[in-house]
């Protein structure tokens, strides 16, 4: 009834059922069209939004064998005078290390910061002798202490701080008492994460096909607060949780409590006290469902079963360093600067070749060609060339340049292949641009006595420049995004191309290799972001050019 009233009000008379049906169909149909347009827009926003977001922000959940939080001060036994602080040169982006990383940095197994802070800087180690060295060795090395051969021995904290502050990539250790001296120097103290959580082996065994793969920091907190009483609450075996803690006043206990609990920690009733790591090891073996914390190096010594602990790491992914630094280790560390440069080389060379040929072809097709069969064949050629899959161009380039001409997989082969691919884009855009130059301009030029060629070069082509530019820029877009045609013609060397024949990796190939070889999704997102930004820029510039063209010719 209500609807009827409305129609009466609107139209002033009642609509026939048939008209109403037609109107309903009309509305439904238009709504469907609107939804389809919405899907198209939504798809683009999701793709761009998702890749840009993950490109700029990396939000990783990484499982470690140590707690997510570390402590600045390293110590092992209660009765030592000096606690130790590990310090690094100020250029190093890392602010914290796991104890394993500290060990490997000092014994030389890690010789480059790439694995830790993604910086391509070699590690330099500074040591000092005396009590503090013995203490450091006990804290850092689970077995025989061994320092890297290139380590430099300095004398005392002040000299260490001075050396570390002035040597790129350096790391050293000082006593905690002198940590204030670090302010105003180019060095900083590092937090070290070294507490692990060990359990009875049965906790880690699969139950009903499900295995406890890791715990979060929060879950560990709640276990030690006594909030969980059975492992089944955490998706593991049906075993009562038995907590082991170290006796009051022990270093590991105070460190554990200070990093994990903000307020005062009260022991739950399912906790038992152990005096030292060997007692803990015994406790863990004897009680199914037992859990306890321990220094990672002690866990290694007593061969305890550790639980992985998940940590969420949110940070800036695409930073200036990523664009400016050269890649190393297949792109695992460093940035993509050489790859960006290779891409620019390729674009420049391609335009140098395809630009003149494409514009000349367009001039011929619009200004010279007669409307005959030959012209039709030429046009068909351009259209067909645009439709040939890029992988076929890749094979063609491979057969012609690599197999027959034998110029190898490299910049020149790749560039020549891409040139053929982008020709249609340039020809078509230039053709449109030249066609849109008003006939009157040609006629006035010819009337003034200019030859046809003079008219083309001095009048027609300059007037068509914005349209030709649009074609060139669209062609750049196509070249930047091309991958399949380049895989077997241009190669994948991520270093800067030294000459025309050297293999060179471009952005799109880099993205593909990062994903295919599982090197790093984070870096793939950052590379994808750069590609998308280039495409958006190209779109912006072409729209501006087309706008100008429309203004010029009405």
């Amino acid at each position, binding site marked *: 009834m209500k609807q009827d009233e409305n129609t009466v009000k609107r139209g002033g008379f009642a609509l026939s059922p048939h008209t109403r049906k037609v*109107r309903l*169909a*009309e509305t439904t*149909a*238009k709504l*469907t069209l*609107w939804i*389809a*347009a919405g*899907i*198209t*827009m939504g798809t683009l926003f999701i*793709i*761009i939004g*998702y890749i840009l977001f993950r490109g700029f922000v990396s939000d990783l959940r990484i499982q470690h064998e140590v707690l997510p939080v570390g402590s600045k001060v390293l110590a092992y036994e209660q009765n030592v005078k000096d606690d130790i602080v590990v310090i690094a040169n100020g250029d190093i982006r890392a602010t914290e290390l796991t104890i394993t990383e500290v060990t490997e940095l000092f014994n030389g197994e890690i010789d480059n910061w790439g694995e830790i802070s993604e910086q391509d800087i070699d590690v330099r180690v500074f040591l000092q002798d005396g009590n503090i060295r013995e203490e450091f060795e006990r804290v850092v090395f689970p077995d025989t202490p061994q320092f890297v051969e290139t380590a430099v021995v300095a004398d005392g904290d002040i000299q260490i701080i001075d050396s570390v502050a002035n040597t790129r990539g350096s790391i050293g250790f000082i006593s905690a008492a002198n940590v204030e001296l670090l302010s105003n120097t180019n060095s900083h103290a590092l937090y070290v994460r070294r507490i692990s959580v060990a359990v009875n082996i049965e906790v880690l065994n699969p139950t009903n096909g499900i295995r406890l793969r890791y715990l979060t920091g929060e879950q560990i907190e709640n276990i030690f607060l006594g909030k969980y009483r059975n492992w089944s609450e955490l998706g593991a075996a049906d075993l009562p949780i038995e907590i082991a803690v170290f006796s009051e006043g022990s270093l590991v206990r105070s460190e554990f409590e200070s990093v994990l609990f903000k307020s005062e920690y009260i022991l739950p009733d399912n906790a038992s006290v152990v005096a030292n790591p060997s007692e803990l090891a015994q406790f863990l073996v004897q009680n199914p469902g037992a859990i306890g914390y321990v220094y990672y190096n002690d866990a290694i010594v007593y061969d305890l079963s550790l639980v992985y602990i998940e940590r969420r790491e949110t940070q800036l992914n695409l930073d200036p360093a990523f664009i400016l630094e050269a890649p190393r280790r297949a792109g695992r560390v460093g940035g993509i600067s050489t790859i960006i440069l290779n891409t620019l080389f390729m674009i420049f060379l391609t335009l140098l070749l395809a630009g*003149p*040929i*494409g514009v*000349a072809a367009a*001039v*011929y*097709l619009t200004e010279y*060609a007669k409307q005959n069969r030959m012209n039709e*064949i*030429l046009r068909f*050629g*351009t*259209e*067909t*060339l645009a*439709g*040939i*899959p*890029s*992988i*076929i161009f*890749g*094979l*063609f380039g*491979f*057969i*012609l340049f690599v197999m027959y001409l034998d110029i190898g997989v490299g910049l020149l082969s790749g560039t020549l292949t891409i040139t*053929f691919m982008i*020709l*249609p884009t340039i020809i078509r855009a230039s053709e449109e641009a030249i066609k849109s130059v008003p006939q009157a301009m040609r006629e006035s030029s010819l009337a003034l006595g200019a030859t046809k*060629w003079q008219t083309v070069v001095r009048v027609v082509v300059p007037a068509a420049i914005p349209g030709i530019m649009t074609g060139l820029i669209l062609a750049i*877009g196509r070249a930047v*995004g091309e*991958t*399949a045609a380049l895989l077997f013609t241009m190669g994948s060397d991520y270093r800067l191309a030294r000459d025309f024949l050297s293999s060179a990796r471009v952005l*799109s*190939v880099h*993205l*593909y290799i990062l*994903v295919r070889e599982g090197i790093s999704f984070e870096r793939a997102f950052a590379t994808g972001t750069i*590609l998308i930004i280039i*495409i*958006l820029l190209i*779109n912006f510039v072409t*729209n501006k050019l087309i706008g100008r063209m429309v203004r010029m010719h009405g």
Partner: protein
Amino acid sequence: MEGAVEKLLFMCAMVSILTIIFISIFIFMAGIPLFEEVSIIEFLFSDRWRPTDNQNPGFGILAFIVASILVTAGALVIGVPIGLATAIHLAEIAGERSSRFLKSVVEILAGIPSVVYGFFGTVLLAPINRMIFGGTGFNILTASIILAIMILPTVISLSEVSIKSVSKDLKAASLALGASHWQTIIRVILPAASSGIITAVVLGTGRAVGETMAVLMVAGNAAMMPEAVTSMVRTLTMSIAGDMGYAAGIHRTALFATSIVLFLFVMALNVFIKIITRKGRI
């Protein structure tokens, strides 16, 4: 002088057609030798692909052909309705502003590199697919969705142009006879624009069949006969791109022969378009 210039320009205009001729000569020369060892029938109609088996090698690409057809068909089923509806919306309904915005959306979609589409499929679509259907998530369905997105710009922009180029008189006549806007679109405008729309769909098909990187990253790459939409498959292009890096000898020749099949298919589509547009003109 003028004559020489004209000859030079003519040479440049010939580059496209010469490229096509050279491409066909080269891939035929590289691929044909396969048929000295394997019969064309076996090559096209056997699904046994064991190129590196020394004792009993198999060079049948039927599974790849079927995979290419299925993935492309899936892309068309998803992409054409959405693309066509968007094109109608653009040409007939959207206002000046929203149509300009929608057009730049389509342009950007067309500009996004295929490897970025493949990456997007890997990190977002495949995991969603895995959650719903289990398995790896890399299958026909994921590949079809990605390809559908990739052919949208082709379908939308060409359909829109052909819908817009339908004579205004036809539309006016239909509306004057009392037909509603929607009836006019369905009964008058779309039939009049049909040759352009078919061209758009055929070009979209060509793009989907020839697409390499995106499908290579999301279709699973299993050289087997597909059984369901959640099967991992390997298409013709994937077979070429995936193996070319290490293939040698007859294996490489077989890949060139595969590319002949792909090339002939794409050429056939182009000739088809040529015929359609010529008919449309008359």
